[in-house]
């Protein structure tokens, strides 16, 4: 059987185990075990992947297996991975792993919590490995929907409102997406032959441009909403603010990446001409969201809002890079996805831990935490530096790749957009340092914080696993960037033609 299926089997088995187990103590152990296994397997997969490549297997997709599911619609259970998917899978497994540990202390309906958390992860894994649009869409929605319960039940603040808003906006997105997908499906055989949902097959045919122009906006915006595309990003601040820690982590860290990944894999890959001729609209939008998100973050008081807006900014950068449509920028986009995934997961984890101690997220109510909880504070600073783009941490690599890539487009429009986007590094520095200064440095604002105790072991595990991966990417980015770059040559073929 296809090794990729383990990525689905392991979580499912874990869920079964959770359902079957009786005492709540075991639940988190089981999920931790399961997710560790998943993480381990992700690395094994990476190893196998390299093995195959070195063995000279130059097929665009590896581990491809396809079984027909719905004969009459030609729907297949087709799985396969290339470098990009592998990287994404790694990211997902790391974040999930950390997420489980961070939510160690959830005790209200613990079973259900971990179940839905892992269900969400399953959806994401499925999305990343599936090569069939239908299956992809299925997993996509599967990943989105547990969010409602996770936020609604375990959230804080105006959770019901946020959960509903998030779910509806994302589902609205997938509504647009569905139209786009159907359009692609019914144009997948322009000169006769069998219609197909198969990504790789559709990529071979060239869909009539008129159809592309009609369906590209649907598809791109559909995914873009999940990628926090301006002006459809407003679910993100509220959603994140209300979500429980692990959920924010998974959502910002992984789920929002589905958006970018889909924009690239489906919208741009299958509809290149339209992408090329409509890109300018979305470049404007993404440029706006990069700067806009950063400026929005400056004014916020709530840690989670700050982070949500910075996510808007960073994810905007991802989409922007994708729209640059060259190898370097695209590599940068995926680097940024991964980097932002880890970074923002770390941020949310820390925010959760801090909130768990101080019971507030308002930065101006806190201060001088560095003295009280040095471990968490240091991690926070590291996360901040990563998002500022300090060399040696992942953010720098990603941003630089994007900027260099974006600079390859010589016309004035792209140049101006690029320079505007570059300026975000300063704004980012402003709001990050502002937070660090107010939150961590300075004198301790509130005496009763003096007896807060620092991170516990599970928090350390969660935090360190993320920091290590951030640093690993930042220090030795070459392997990752090559991993991401290697499939792009073929994928970007149509764009180089244009």
């Amino acid at each position, binding site marked *: 059987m296809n090794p990729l299926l383990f990525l689905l089997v392991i979580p499912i088995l874990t869920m079964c185990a959770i359902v079957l187990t009786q005492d709540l103590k075991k639940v988190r152990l089981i999920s931790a075990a399961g997710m560790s296994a998943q993480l381990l397997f992700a690395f094994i997969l990476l190893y196998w992947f390299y093995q195959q490549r070195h063995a000279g297997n130059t097929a665009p997709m590896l581990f491809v297996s396809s079984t027909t*599911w*719905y*004969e*009459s*619609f030609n*729907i297949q259970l087709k799985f396969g991975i290339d470098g990009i998917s592998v990287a994404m899978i790694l990211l997902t497994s790391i974040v999930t792993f950390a997420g489980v540990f961070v939510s160690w202390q959830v005790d209200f309906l613990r079973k259900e919590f971990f179940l839905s958390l892992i269900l969400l992860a399953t959806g994401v894994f499925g999305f990343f490995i599936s090569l069939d649009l*239908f299956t992809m*869409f*299925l*997993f996509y*929605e*599967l990943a989105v*929907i547990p969010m*409602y*319960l996770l936020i*609604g*039940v375990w959230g804080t603040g105006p*959770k*019901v409102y946020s959960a*509903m808003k998030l*779910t*509806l906006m994302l*589902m*609205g997105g997938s*509504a*647009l997406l*569905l*139209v786009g997908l*159907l*359009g692609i*499906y*019914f144009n997948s055989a322009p000169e006769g032959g069998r219609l197909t949902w198969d990504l790789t097959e559709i990529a071979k045919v060239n869909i009539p441009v008129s159809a592309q122009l*009609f369906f590209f906006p649907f598809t791109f915006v559909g995914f873009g909403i999940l990628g926090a595309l301006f002006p459809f990003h407003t679910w993100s601040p509220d959603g994140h603010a209300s979500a429980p820690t692990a959920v924010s982590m998974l959502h910002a860290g992984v789920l929002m990446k589905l958006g970018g990944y889909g924009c690239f894999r489906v919208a741009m890959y299958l509809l290149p001409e339209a992408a090329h001729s409509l890109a300018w609209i979305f470049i404007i939008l993404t440029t706006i969201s990069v700067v806009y998100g950063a400026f929005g973050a400056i004014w916020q008081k709530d840690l989670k809002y700050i982070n949500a807006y910075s996510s808007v900014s960073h994810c905007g950068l991802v989409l922007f890079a994708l729209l640059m449509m060259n190898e370097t920028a695209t590599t940068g986009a995926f680097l940024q996805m991964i980097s932002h995934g880890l970074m923002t997961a770390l941020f949310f984890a820390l925010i959760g831990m801090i909130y768990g101690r101080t019971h507030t997220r308002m930065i101006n109510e806190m201060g001088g935490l560095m003295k009280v909880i040095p471990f968490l504070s240091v991690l926070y600073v590291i996360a901040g530096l990563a998002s500022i783009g300090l060399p040696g941490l992942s953010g720098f690599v990603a941003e630089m790749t994007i900027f260099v890539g974006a600079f390859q487009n010589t016309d004035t429009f792209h140049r101006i957009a690029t320079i505007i986007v570059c300026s975000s590094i300063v704004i980012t520095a402003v709001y990050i340092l502002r937070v660090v200064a107010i939150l961590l440095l300075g004198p301790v604002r509130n005496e009763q914080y003096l007896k807060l105790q620092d991170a516990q072991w599970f928090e350390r595990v969660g935090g360190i696993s993320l920091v290590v991966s951030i640093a690993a990417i930042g220090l030795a980015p070459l392997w990752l960037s090559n991993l991401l770059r290697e499939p792009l040559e073929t994928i970007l073929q149509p764009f180089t033609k244009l």
Partner: protein
Amino acid sequence: MTWNSLYIMRHEVLLTILILYQLVADISEKNDKSRVVHITIITFFIVTVVGFFPSGDANLFGSMYISDDLRLLLKNILGVSTLIVLLQASTWLRDPQQGARTGAFCLSIFATLMGMFFMISAGNFLMVYLGLELATIPLTLLAAFDKGLRRSAEAGIKLLMSSAVSSAVLLFGLSMIYGIYGTFYFSELALLSNSSSLAILALTFFLCGLGFKLSLVPFHFWTADVYEGAPLAVTTYVSVVSKGAALFTLMLVLYRVFGHQSDIWLMALYLLSVITMVVGNLFALRQKNMKRFLAFSSITQAGFMILGFMNTDVLGMTTIVYFMLIYGFSNLAVFGVLSIVFNATGKEDMDYLSGFYSTNPRLSLIMLVSLFSLAGIPPVAGFFGKFFLFTAVASSGMYILVLIAVLNATLSLYYYLLVVKVMFINRNELPIGRLSSTAYEKIAFALCLGGVLIIGFASSVYEYIESVM
């Protein structure tokens, strides 16, 4: 008339026997009805099973009665749904101070079911009309079955009056059809074609008549009131079985008889589906009474169902039946939970469900799954049903309609999630106590959940439906 033809008509014949049994039982068993209920359910179970035996195509009574695999399938879908309804109603039926009702209830149920069977395997508009009336008139009585309650009586009269008018309109249409074509036999009509304005008028009136049963907007007004007023079992029955029968009949007539006039009804159904989805959603948005809520939700679903007609080919029919099947299971599951709650507390308001999960995790999970199925959320079957419907629409290039439909699906998700919210998120210091369910109800749930969870993944189901088209 040979034994074989009796075998071919086994659904109806066996139902007749059951009906007669009810008469006898009603007289013999005076006070304790539970035995009757047991026997009825078991025998009906057998009838349903027997219904699945294969039997080839056949035209009886001078092709006034048609039977083929497709019609068999449709009948069986209805049969199973009815069985589930009975299983769920068993508690309510056996409850002693309602003693007298059992016989009449079952008899009317079977009569209506028989009417629906005739609608489905009709080879002649006369039979369609007869079946329709047979499926409607006892239903009005059923709606008024809670004799103690004003609202039940009101539901009955409302249903009767409006359905009488609707059938009159339908008849008017039929009479015109007769005037134009000179026959009621499908076999002959299928060959004839006429695009005069009178033909359009006739066809539209006929559509409206069936649209009433299907509760399409603007023919839907009775729905909410009847759902609310009627006893829960009856509501379940109306929302699934009789809706299904109407849908199937409409499908058979349109595809098999007026197939070559598709451009007429295509337009009509396009408009109807759009307005139905939108209005149904808007009304459902604020309902607090679960029965009314489900009424409007079922209206919306009806709007989705007739999306399938946008494809005038096998794809269309298949998706329609497939969706109806899934909708049936999901809706039945929801009603099952409600009936348990209702039997225990007599409450139908959404708010009474708040904190339901804390006391009845199983039931609320069943509810959750089936609501998601209604909303079309993966991995449950509803997702597949909706997706394929949209595919059918898209296949004829009506992407705008797809967009409208999908946005409506999203909107509908909103109020389904409201219920989920009430059950899972709302805190409640004194929620409904722990509820137990009888063996019958367990079986019913098993059937429903099996349907909801499996149908989607087992593509063979879809392919079987496709094969019998």
